[in-house]
């Protein structure tokens, strides 16, 4: 029997039962010995209680998606078991809390997690009972677990370490008694590069700080709050400012004031807060003030699905405000790209002197993943062109970008949200509105050189995902190519403006398939407006795509399109 290369575990229970920490612990244990891992989390919108689950996928190869089928379901209560049992793979195993008896006839192993933890000497070790059992099911050496425990807990005393060791042993014993197993997990193949393990929101924060972020004002909102908390803790330094605002309206206007006064400023929010920022974003576009707004998408509209994932803010990210606006949008597709997007969103804001939207999503914000450690030395940081002359400067002269004065030095002008003349005074002259409108749009030309990915370029049919769907779509692409399908791959995180060369290629294709997590097919609709023959595969469940569903949808779409051509 060949060894297993990957396995997927889902932990399901109630909020507060340690479901989140269990999957993160498993991912860390695995990554520390050289496996690749990725977690997915979905929460109830309450602090304690409510059904919740998280998932961890462990593999010998880099992981792109959370995995379709469960090899193990850890069910902490009967409701969790009933809700998730249908997603078990054929040989899947249920690891259940013996407070209930599973109704189905799957392979199942019951154990009293909490009682065993107490018996081990520390009620907080229930997770480690689970880890022991899981390790046993894939014949993972217990040393991996115990090394992790020592590293993590030795500073808190040998007693804690010993309790955790006992908990692991209990889990191993109980699983071994059952005689079930999933086949041995292949030895890890540790990457030869330095790694980091982080969530998407951490990566965005670090990228922004690397790019010179020195002004952050934000308001708590799921799933963007972790960025505010990161900044409150770490952006404390002379010349830097971080603050919790009284509302998102205050956030956007405060970072506008910061950007105007010379700072690299940012806020992070989610749909409802983003809606409140509309008018301020229009002001930043109009008055040409650099700033970055991170929109961590969740299910919408209104309060929507605060703790679920969706890609439905693209239209509003590009066009959040009334009037003629088209805001630059960068949408990262994985954790590495979250870091790069953090850097590039600030670079873009500085380069074109205006607002930039970093469009991420819940599934990336809360995903823990091992990544190649970002190379700080290779990051290129851009700064705005600053006006260094005397007074009498015409800030808004001409049809293109011009140097920006900074308050406190000569070059006073009025940054104006009303249409204005070259010195910033309000005017209603048609010639000025023409000039300033064209000036604002011309600056987008400075951003059309973004990177993009391209594979199997000769195919007339291409897959082009965006944002956090990238990983699942990439897995589907690999499967389709392995099955012999002639299909190409195009991808960029620079959604507006699109890289110029990419757009040229897109226009030559017969079919551009865009899987996206929204009802309207927002990105494909935008691509069609550019003359691209794009069609969406949509899903609006609040959950990410499954690879298997994508493979069949893509095949169906290609077959339908072929039929339409033949007819």
């Amino acid at each position: 029997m060949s060894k297993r290369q990957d396995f997927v575990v889902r932990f399901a229970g109630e909020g507060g039962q340690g479901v989140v920490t269990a999957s993160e612990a498993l991912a860390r244990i695995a990554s520390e010995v050289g496996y690749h891992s990725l977690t997915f989390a979905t929460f109830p919108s309450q602090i304690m209680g409510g059904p919740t689950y998280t998932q961890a996928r462990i593999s010998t190869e880099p992981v792109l998606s959370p995995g379709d089928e469960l090899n193990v379901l850890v069910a902490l209560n009967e409701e969790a078991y009933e809700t998730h049992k249908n997603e078990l793979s054929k040989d899947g195993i249920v690891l259940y809390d013996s407070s209930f008896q599973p109704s189905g006839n799957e392979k199942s192993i019951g154990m009293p997690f909490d009682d065993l933890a107490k018996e081990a000497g520390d009620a907080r070790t229930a997770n480690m009972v689970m880890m022991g059992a899981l390790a046993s099911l894939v014949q993972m050496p217990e040393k991996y677990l115990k090394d992790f425990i020592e590293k993590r807990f030795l500073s808190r005393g040998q007693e804690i370490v010993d309790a955790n060791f006992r908990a692991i042993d209990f889990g191993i014993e109980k699983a071994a008694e059952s005689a079930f197993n999933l086949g041995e997990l292949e030895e890890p193949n540790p990457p030869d590069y330095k790694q980091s393990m982080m969530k998407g929101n951490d990566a965005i924060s670090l990228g922004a700080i690397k790019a010179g972020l020195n002004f952050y004002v934000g308001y708590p909102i799921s799933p963007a709050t972790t960025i505010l908390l990161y900044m409150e803790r770490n952006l404390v330094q002379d010349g830097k400012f971080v603050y919790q605002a009284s509302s998102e309206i205050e956030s956007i206007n405060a970072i506008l004031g910061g950007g105007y006064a010379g700072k690299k400023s940012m806020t992070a929010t989610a749909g409802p807060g983003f809606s409140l920022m509309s008018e301020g974003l229009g002001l930043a576009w109009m008055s040409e003030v650099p700033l970055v707004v991170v929109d961590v998408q969740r299910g919408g509209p209104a309060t929507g699905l605060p703790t679920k994932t969706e890609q439905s803010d693209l239209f509003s990210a590009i066009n959040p405000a009334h009037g003629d606006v088209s805001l630059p949008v960068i949408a990262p597709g994985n954790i590495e790209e979250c870091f790069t997007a953090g850097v590039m969103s600030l670079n873009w804001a500085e380069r074109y002197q205006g607002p930039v939207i970093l469009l991420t999503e819940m599934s990336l914000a809360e995903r823990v993943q091992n990544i190649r450690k970002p190379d700080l030395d290779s990051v290129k940081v851009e700064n705005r062109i600053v006006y260094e002359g005397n007074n009498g400067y015409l800030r808004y002269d001409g049809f293109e970008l011009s140097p920006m004065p900074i308050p406190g030095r000569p070059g006073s002008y009025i940054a104006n949200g009303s249409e204005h003349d070259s010195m910033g005074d309000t005017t209603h002259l048609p010639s000025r509105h023409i000039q300033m409108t064209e000036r604002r749009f011309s600056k987008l030309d400075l951003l059309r050189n973004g990177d993009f990915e391209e594979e199997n370029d000769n195919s007339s049919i291409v897959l082009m995902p965006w944002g956090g769907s990238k990983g699942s779509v990439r897995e589907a692409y690999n499967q389709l190519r392995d099955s012999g399908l002639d299909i190409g791959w195009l991808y960029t995180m620079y959604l507006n403006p699109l890289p110029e060369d990419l757009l040229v290629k897109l226009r030559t294709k017969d079919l551009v398939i865009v899987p996206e997590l929204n009802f309207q097919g927002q990105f494909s609709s935008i691509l069609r407006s550019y003359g691209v023959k794009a069609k969406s595969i949509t899903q609006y469940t609040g959950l990410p795509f499954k690879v298997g569903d994508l493979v069949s949808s893509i095949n169906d779409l290609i077959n339908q399109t072929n039929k339409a051509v033949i007819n």
Partner: protein
Amino acid sequence: MSKKNPEYDFAWCPGCGDFGVRRAVEFALTDRLKETEEIIENTVVVAGIGCSGNLVHLLEDPQPFGLHGIHGRSLPIAFGVKMANPDLNVITVAGDGDFLSIGMEHIAPQATRNLDICSVVMDNGVYGLTKGQSSPTTDYGVKTTSTPYGKIEDKIHPLKYYLTIGASFIASGYSSKPRDLAKLIQAGMEHPGFAVVHVQSPCTTYNDTYEILKGNAKKGVPGLMYDIPEEYDRTDRLAAEELINSPGIPVGIIYEDKTRPSLTAETNRITESVKSRDVAQLLSDYDF
């Protein structure tokens, strides 16, 4: 705008109180330049939307920096400007509609933070630029274009409000006495915390209150405004409460608390006490 700009197409009505407020702001800035070593470009005027906000375009030489933003948001913008560079002298100019209606939610946060800026509020008791609608400071019962049968809300009392939410400097002024008003604005700019200078600035077109405010001896109208007596202790909060609960509109500095630390002082305190880490150190938290 440094001289007559033919493209700028806004003008206040003849007799508008805002002319006087503009003079007062100019006097205050000129005096500040004389008394400090600052350059005029160290001042930023953040303007609200309405007749009053146009003050930022109508200042004559010398020219400070300006930011003419969106309706009701002069305070959050000024918050950003000030905290981006605490060395700047930041003032806001806005009317009663902008500051006290749509912008009301932003006043208390600046007061509780003690943000070190000076807000000049031009109160004419009406929305002028949109042609005569009722505002938060329009009296109960008054007919306006939006209250054709009389206003059925009580008006708010701005000075009581500022005191209640904890503004650390509150002054009350009058647009027709720009020299006196300039002194209040200058004191507000010098105050190390959140300063509000609330100015009676009548609208000659929609709500001409000059006579009610000043009085008219010939007609036997007493006038609402009076100067605060010299012996008044403006550091005494209870005295301030008594003063603003009395009939009429006192003119002068109503309340001043220089003992509270400003937001700048508080953030400096935190910054000095926290050991900062560079991005390489922050990134190493995620090593494994």
